[in-house]
């Protein structure tokens, strides 16, 4: 088991290396430079030149890359040009909102998806099933940010139930914290729910046709137990995979939604940093996001073993 985890973690290294090189290349292909952005629209050319030199932007690209990689191995992701602080600190500051949002929308998604997916699977082929699946397709087809805009108009502007946008940390009180996240969580959660519900349905349908479900029923078990104990647990691996994937994308993929709701999360950090050409932050954050994504997948993989003894035993051997 341990050697399995170790192997998986070692296999991350080439992935991260590729990601960092790709990101570095993209960044340095991008026109524009942080000095001009820092100094503002009406800065003189001389001032910009001066700052570029001071920031070390005139060194050759490969030199900048090796310098950066060297730092990474020492646990130093560099300093932000804009925030007067190390990149690690900037990431940590933006991580809170993203994690809160990711968890909340994932909970929303699972609460919607599992019951609906299970229901559709049990009533497969019926009108209920088709309605649910049609709805779930609709859920997938609405871009999150668009749904977010609609929610803002209805819930915040017309009904004034919720604040339009913004973010309050948990330290401002639980309700304060949550009330800013409800709309973005719904906007994101619905799309995720659709994906999870579809996977739940198809996995449940497949499992419900397996023989041991008949065995379970023939034992006289209540249908509830048949579904939630015998079927769901067996059907759960693909569902878990989707949950893991959607959660992984939430860490940075909610960028547009974060922008709409002005949530200072990781996605917005990346978008803003691209706009500002805050190179160090882009590199560091992308590295972190990639790592998170891959680690979540690893975690999901390890959870397979918890759910399914066959996987567990195979990995142990």
């Amino acid at each position, binding site marked *: 088991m341990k050697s399995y985890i170790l192997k998986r973690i070692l296999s991350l290294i080439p992935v991260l290396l590729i990601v960092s090189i790709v990101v570095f290349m993209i960044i340095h292909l991008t026109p524009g430079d942080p000095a001009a952005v820092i100094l503002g629209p009406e800065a003189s050319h001389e001032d910009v030149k001066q700052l570029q030199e001071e920031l070390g932007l005139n060194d050759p690209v490969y030199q900048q890359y090796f310098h950066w990689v060297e730092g990474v191995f020492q646990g130093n992701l560099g300093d932000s040009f804009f925030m007067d602080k190390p990149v690690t600190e900037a990431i940590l500051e933006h991580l809170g909102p993203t994690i809160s949002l990711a968890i909340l929308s994932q909970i929303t998604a699972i609460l919607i998806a599992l019951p609906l997916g299970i229901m559709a699977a049990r009533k*497969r082929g019926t009108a209920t099933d088709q309605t649910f699946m049609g709805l779930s397709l609709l859920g997938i087809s609405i871009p999150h940010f668009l749904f977010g805009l609609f929610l803002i108009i209805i819930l915040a502007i017309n009904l004034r139930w919720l604040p339009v946008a913004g973010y309050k940390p948990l330290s401002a009180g639980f309700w304060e914290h949550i009330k800013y996240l409800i709309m973005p969580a719904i906007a994101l959660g619905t799309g995720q729910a659709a994906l999870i519900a579809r996977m739940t349905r198809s996995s449940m349908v497949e499992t419900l046709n*397996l*023989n041991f479900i008949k*065995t379970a029923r*023939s*034992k006289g078990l209540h249908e509830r137990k048949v579904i939630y104990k015998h079927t769901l647990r067996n059907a759960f691996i693909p569902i878990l995979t989707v949950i893991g994937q959607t959660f992984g994308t939430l860490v940075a993929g909610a960028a547009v939604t974060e922008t709409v709701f002005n949530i200072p999360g990781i996605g917005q950090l990346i978008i803003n940093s691209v706009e500002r050409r805050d190179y160090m932050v882009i590199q560091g954050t992308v590295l972190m996001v990639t790592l998170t994504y891959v680690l979540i997948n690893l975690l999901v993989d390890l959870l397979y073993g918890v759910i399914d003894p066959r996987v567990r035993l195979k990995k142990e051997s």
Partner: protein
Amino acid sequence: MGDHLLEVNNLKTHFRTERGKVTAVDGISFHVDRGEVLAIVGESGCGKSVTAQSILRLFEEKGVTSYDGEINFEGKNLLKISDSEMRKIRGNDISMIFQDPLSSLNPVFTIGDQIMEPIMLHQKLSKKEAYERAIEMLKLIGIPAPEQRVHEYPHQISGGMRQRVMIAIALACQPKLLIADEPTTALDVTIQSQILELIDSLRQKLDMGIMLITHDLGVVAQHCTRVAVMYLGEVVEEGDVESLFENPLHPYTQGLISSIPQLFGNRNKKLSIIKGMVPSLNEIPKGCRFAPRCPFADAKCMNEKPELETLDHNKRIKCWHHQTIKGAVSNAT
């Protein structure tokens, strides 16, 4: 006739499919008594398994499956009772064993968990008591080192072992009726007979009725008391094992029997095959269902449906020409 353990009267099972309503079991009747083994035989797709599962009402999807007729178990019509009453019968009074023991066991729970489940459910035993019961059951069905086995998962034990576990699950609550749906098909020949012996010995011990579904006539000859032959959702012939094997009346039964290779006897004799294929349930013949494949069929067979005739108290037949055919076949053998 009212005091059989199980009595099925004119049972019909319908499914709604993409292509319309299909009647997989079409008006069959039979009964099982305590301590006896009723075999249901027929080719695959003839409705044996559907019959078995209909008895326990395992086709749960509402709106997709519907039943007609009566299934009387100890005087109760199983088609009329509520879901919760039905659940009390399943696994308790009537148990079932399925064909493929690997896929019939839940891969993510230990063997022990799966045996304990019906015990705790129906006998209201505590977890500890149920655990002891499970060990007892494993011993009963001849599994060595049961204290270790209970903690293992189905994929860790052999095929024969798995089927024994299935039997342990089925018999955990000492049912009055055991439905065994091709319990040995997926197993090695040596293990097959062990399993059947086991079932047989347990029947005697527990005084159960057994409904054995199989397509293996050899098994039927060895282990069963009575036989019902099914073809395309109907029972075409029913009777005692001896009389059926010695004196098959329905051309289909005759076909089945003559397709068994004889270990002792005339090996040069060509095995006869029933020509053609079982038609699909959507294309059921108008008259006698077997007519298109029957070597004796005439215009009457093609157009008119025969009824199940009772010849004497334990012999029934559904064929227009059973009297004529009888002679023809016995001459041939």
